[in-house]
């Protein structure tokens, strides 16, 4: 779920803008010049992937995949997520333009954490890599839900109910994303393993 315009108090909206801009700048600096177009393209392929709906009983949920972005891009993940969210806001109105900072934090921080953790715990074998992928994929959504709840609750006690419901709505997505991330990582391990190796040079 992306926060729309008009929910966050001005101080929160402006504050999260500032933090997100700083993190984006850091993330761009960490990206090598040659990799910039690559990151841009990954941004758009994740944008497309997040349009995919996974059936869940009578309804369906769309993928968030902050975990996968982190796994594949490492420290460049934040700028990728931030630009992807900006485009989503401009094109689809998914997430408000004044809440861009908050939404970037909500998806970007989990992406960075997942990327860092993946680089730390992935082993040499297929099993360990897939396990790491599942953990990081699930963790990404879990953290995204947590950051969303924290942002809502700190916007005022009136949003407590909404925050609780949003948090519960994230629970089934954690399992789905863990599974999808595991399958995607397993696929990449077999087909193009170098994609899993380049991420997060800082942690290795």
């Amino acid at each position: 779920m992306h926060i729309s315009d008009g929910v966050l108090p001005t101080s929160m909206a402006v504050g999260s803008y500032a933090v997100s801009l700083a993190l984006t700048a850091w993330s761009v600096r960490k990206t090598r010049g040659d990799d910039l177009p690559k990151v841009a393209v990954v941004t758009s392929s994740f944008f497309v992937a997040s349009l995919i709906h996974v059936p869940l009983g009578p309804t369906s949920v769309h993928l968030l995949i902050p975990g996968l972005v982190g796994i594949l891009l490492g420290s460049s993940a934040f700028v990728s997520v931030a630009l992807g969210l900006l485009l989503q806001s401009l094109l689809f109105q998914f997430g408000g333009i004044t809440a861009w900072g908050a939404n970037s934090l909500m998806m970007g921080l989990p992406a960075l954490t997942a990327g860092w953790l993946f680089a730390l715990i992935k082993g040499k074998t297929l099993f360990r890599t897939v396990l790491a992928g599942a953990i990081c994929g699930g963790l990404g959504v879990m953290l995204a839900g947590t950051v969303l709840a924290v942002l809502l609750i700190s916007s005022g006690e009136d949003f407590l109910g909404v925050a609780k419901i949003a948090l519960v709505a994230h629970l089934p997505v954690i399992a789905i994303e863990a599974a999808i991330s595991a399958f995607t990582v397993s696929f990449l391990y077999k087909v193009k393993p170098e994609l899993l190796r380049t991420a997060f040079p800082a942690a290795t």
Partner: protein
Amino acid sequence: MHITTVSVYWLAVFLILLVFLGFGCTRLVSFLRARRSSTRSVSRDRDRTIPAIDAHAHNHSPFHNWDPRFKIASLFLYWFCVASLQQLPLCLLAFFISWAAARLAKIPLSTSMKRIAAVSGFVGMFLLVMPLTVPVKPGDHLLVPDSFQFIQFNLRGLHLAVRIGLKATAIALMMDPVLGTSPLPVTLKALAHLRVPDRICQMLSLAHRYLFVFHHEAKRMATGMLARGFHKETSLATLKAMGNFIGMLFVRSFERTERVYDAMLARGYNGQIPAFMEFQAGKKDWLKGGFWVMAGLALVISDLMVQLPLPFAG
């Protein structure tokens, strides 16, 4: 605190209204879209065509002939002014201003409705949840249905949700007049002039261009999967197929970029895309920018200074 017992029917009326609002917007959008194109997609999934953001950039209006640097800068400030409003009548006013601006900028009604439909899910959730969950404060007006005494419908919550909905819609309607009225490369050039780092502008332009390519690619892959008898269901097999789908989409897009990037380097790409246009700001650009900044500040100041009456406060 003020408690009114109401007939349970009012709760039903509220729920039905909500459902109509949500479904109505989506229906309207798909109806408008179906009228425009007679082709139907193979997939039974909802149509997720990515709209071109600058599809209406060729029209003529006060927004089209406005220097994009001033347009973006002044309306960015205006967006934040609207987002910070506290009083419901002013939020309503902001909504009407945005609606008028979208019409003035010759944005088609279907495009505006699509924006509203996109926020309707989020806003609908707030309308449903907030009245039932906001903590009761002294001075609140509660509606309690006569046969379900445990439900407390807090009008302050409804108030908050309506306010959020109006602000979200007002800002959403304002997106197209700002971004849809000049071609995207020109908008990006304007961003670069406004001190947005060059690298970011380039990545935005590349990412936007590739969106459509990969969306097309994903659709082709989905058609292939359908042709092989794949159907979505709640099962591990579906998740595995989708995991592989995303992996493949990623590998393909990655390899494609490497090829294209090498080709760009071979043609002398050095991180700069040359642009053959210069911005020229006139008096009118300043005036329009000034108008929107003043409008935003006027909204904020009257929000802080003037106590306007609350509708349905009880």
